[in-house]
């Protein structure tokens, strides 16, 4: 049988903390086996050896936040058969998308003596805002299990089996006592996509939305329920505006409660 060419894997970084690409290096038991199945053609965090494109699979970490990065993501798209965005930054703009709700120039003045040197886009956006993306792996950070499932699906030419239901379902399956029902702790589990293994409820805290909105969520129904039980609308805004603040469903919820907060203050 003729030897099959190993598919070429590239890992790219935009504005991010490096945690999602680190997840690949954290697969300590699988890393060397993976290196046997794919050609790691571009992965600067791990190797100075660079193989030119085109690439069979590009994993993209980080949000697009500078003019050069717009050009770069287009170039990567041109060079890649499959492009998968990994993590909250690449799929929703990340925590740095909090700038999208403010005047970015104001931010620069706050932290920097010479803001005129600085070049940055008004908004931090996901890869999909600029190029077609073949698949999105959620999470802040992504999980090892889903990453390995994605790579295995790619190698076997099938669709990755990644759930898009809520954390609640994951939580119930594990038999964890509901922190909201039992202890009255606000939890974003009902509107957040599964993938973490219901980690926060397992540790007796409320979910804070690392994996972003689930498919067809109803965040304002949940938010109104929190409001009715005494949560301040300003805290509700903060709850929706963290690592997936610019994911559409969370963005809308955040805006709605931000308006409510302004009305409270003025009135």
């Amino acid at each position, binding site marked *: 049988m003729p030897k099959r060419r190993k598919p070429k894997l590239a890992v790219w*970084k*935009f*504005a*991010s*903390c*490096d*945690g*999602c690409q*680190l*997840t690949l*290096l*954290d697969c*300590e*038991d699988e*890393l*060397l086996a993976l*290196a046997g199945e794919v050609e*790691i053609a571009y992965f*600067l*965090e*791990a*190797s*100075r*050896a660079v193989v030119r494109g085109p690439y069979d699979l590009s994993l993209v970490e980080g949000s697009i*936040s*500078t003019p050069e990065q717009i050009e770069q993501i287009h170039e990567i798209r041109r060079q890649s058969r499959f492009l998968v965005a990994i993590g909250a930054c690449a799929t929703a703009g*990340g*925590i*740095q998308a*909090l*700038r999208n709700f*403010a005047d*970015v120039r*104001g*931010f*620069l003045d*706050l*932290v*920097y*003596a010479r803001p005129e*040197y*600085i*070049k*940055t886009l008004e908004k931090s956006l996901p890869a999909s805002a600029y190029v077609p993306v073949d698949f999105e792996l959620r999470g*802040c*950070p992504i*999980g090892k299990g889903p990453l390995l499932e994605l790579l295995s699906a790619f190698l076997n030419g099938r669709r990755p089996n990644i759930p898009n239901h809520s954390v609640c379902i994951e939580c119930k399956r594990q038999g964890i006592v509901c922190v909201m029902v039992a202890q009255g702790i606000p939890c974003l589990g009902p509107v957040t996509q599964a993938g*973490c293994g219901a*980690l*926060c409820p*397992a*540790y*007796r*805290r409320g979910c*804070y939305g*690392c994996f972003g909105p689930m498919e067809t969520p109803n965040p304002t129904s949940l938010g109104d329920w929190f409001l009715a039980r005494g949560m301040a609308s300003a*805290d509700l805004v*903060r709850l929706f505006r*963290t*690592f997936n603040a610019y994911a559409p469903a969370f963005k809308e919820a955040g805006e709605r409660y931000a308006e409510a907060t302004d009305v409270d203050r003025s009135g």
Partner: protein
Amino acid sequence: MQKPRTLTVRVDALARVEGEGALHVRVRNGQVHELRLEIYEPPRFFEAFLRGRRLEEAPDITARICGICPVAYQMSACNAIESLLGLSIPGPLRDLRLLLYYGEWIESHALHVFLLHLPDFLGYESALHMARDYPEWVQKGLQIKKAGNALMARIGGREIHPINVRIGGFYSVPSRKAMLEHREEIARARDSIVEALRWMAGLEFPDFEEDYEFVALYHPEEYAILEGQIRSSKGILIPVSAFEEVFEELQVPHSNALHSIVRGRGSYMVGPLARFNLNFAQLAPLAQEVAASIGLTPPVRNPFRSLLVRGIEILHACEEALRLIERYEPPDRPWEPVEVRPGIGYGASEAPRGILYHRYRINADGLIEEAKIVPPTAQNQRRIEDDLRKMVPRWLSLPKDQITWRCEQAIRNYDPCISCATHFLRLELQELG
């Protein structure tokens, strides 16, 4: 006689570091004419958007500055805010924090030693290339790393951006039985690192020594990691709250991270070498013993030997983790109650790469009004450039690709975490060449 050399070394995208940086060196007639470690990692504005957040959110938000050392951010944030609130974290809760932090040291150091730095010494492009000839060492390195990650996941919920840390303690605490399960794996990691250290000590280390100003935390009772005073090899001994009086951050046009200096003096070094040299006597006995047996005694002034010092710190972390696990009993409550108090809180801890300083101004509602974060790589950045400025002239007889290789290796001595260093800003990119 050979004509003095003129050349340009350019590394447009540094590999095997966390984050995005480039190196530009111009040598004219045997003199370093220009040398810039350029950090072009885009800004993420953490200090700006921490304003208006609740103090309870600081550990979760600042963790996202760095996927490699999130616990360092969580600990420095807790440290700063708890010192303002007058909260002290008692016995077993403090032990758990130490254990979580040792997990991160083991994970981060093993990543750097075996996957990022070691390939330089053996002439490989990456650990994956190295694994073809040295599979046993790469495997061992990965297993050590895994032991650290497992400890973090147990206490923190997951390795990257742990979810279990809160101001005052933890959301929930593990049982004694759960902690005891880690003993075997950590003991194996300890044995592997001792073996690896004996082997690595025989590698060739480029010849270079420098009279550094080493800066590290100092704690009277332990090899400082969670907290302490700031001490230097040139006479500084100050509380963390005086950090900004003694150290200064400068803006340079070629880097998106600020450069730190000792006011009126210049660059300094934080990280494993600084800790080892200043606090050697507080290392676990086995770590001291192994260090001595491989000829590693303070002061170590050759930055390339940081490879070995990281190994010694892995060993120390394993030993301490085993000791703390042995005495661990779950505390009565997972966290100490938090009562908001307005004011300014200062905190620092020893991230794997060195001192990580946080300052927060908190108002009466418990909201953060101002935040300042100084990560270790920003502090080392000027020092890295100073090293290279002295090293490059000595290497001018080498072929250019060898000079480039050594420059990269010298930068990796510091295990730079560029994602950390550039947590807020971006400068215009200068076209190289």
